[in-house]
């Protein structure tokens, strides 16, 4: 399963040092670790709030990819084209490795509803996110 990620490390995934942890097929839940690059630091010494959405987008997108592959096969993988994203900031995100979980709440033909959370190393919930997205075939699949 880790392969599903390694195959497509985009510049953005590379930037955030995306690291696959596990995929729970039953729950359709992807777990990934991210390490914020020094360039994500705000004057508060934590990750800038907006850039935190980068981690959540990555894990929610990965969840959709993994779920569509598990259900329909590699040829039918889908990635989200995000229409919106809503974030709730419960705690500051430290400049250290964080764990992210992403799930597909509902997968339709035209719209997918995604959800994600970010945790610190002690398991404290830092941020949660939801997103509506259009599931699309993988870009550059035929390249």
């Amino acid at each position, binding site marked *: 399963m880790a392969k599903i990620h390694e195959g497509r490390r985009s510049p953005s995934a590379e930037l955030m040092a995306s690291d696959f942890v596990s995929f729970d097929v039953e729950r359709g839940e992807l777990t990934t670790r991210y390490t914020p690059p020094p*360039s994500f630091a705000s004057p508060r010494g934590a990750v800038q709030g907006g850039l935190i959405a980068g981690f959540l987008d990555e894990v929610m997108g990965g969840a959709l990819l993994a779920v569509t592959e598990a259900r329909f096969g590699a040829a039918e993988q889908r990635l989200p084209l995000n229409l919106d994203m809503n974030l709730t900031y419960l705690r500051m995100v430290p400049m250290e490795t964080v764990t992210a979980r992403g799930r597909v709440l509902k997968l339709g033909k035209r719209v997918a509803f995604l959800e994600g959370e970010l945790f610190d190393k002690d398991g404290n919930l830092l941020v949660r996110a939801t*997103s509506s997205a259009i599931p699309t075939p993988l870009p550059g699949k035929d390249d």
Partner: protein
Amino acid sequence: MADNAILGAPHAKLLGVKFDHFDKDREEITLRFHAPDSFITPRGSVQGGLVAGFLDEVMGWAHVWATDHEEAPLNLDISMSLLKPVMAGPVIGKGRVIRRGRKVIFLEGELFDEAGKLLARATSTAIPTPRPGGAA
């Protein structure tokens, strides 16, 4: 007037932020960004989540300027709509303070391409805090 030194946090450099102007009456700031290549996904545009980085920046600086650099927002939430793909390169951001209370502030931000097309918009609820790092 605005030296870009004040925009010198690590993330500000990453976003390629430059001050354009601040409209005191509207409490609206205009910033210019340069979306880096490292933000790009296989779609060839900036990763949707990272778009919030620009919007956060422009909303935050609206609040900082509206308070004469005394305060900065601590975000409670950000809601963002992604209307068009944001490409690597120049991006223009506008942020404004919708309501500034003592305990809570409401912010709004938009991103445009150079042709003036709206790419993304966001709102945010935040707590005003003394500016970290002060008025350095």
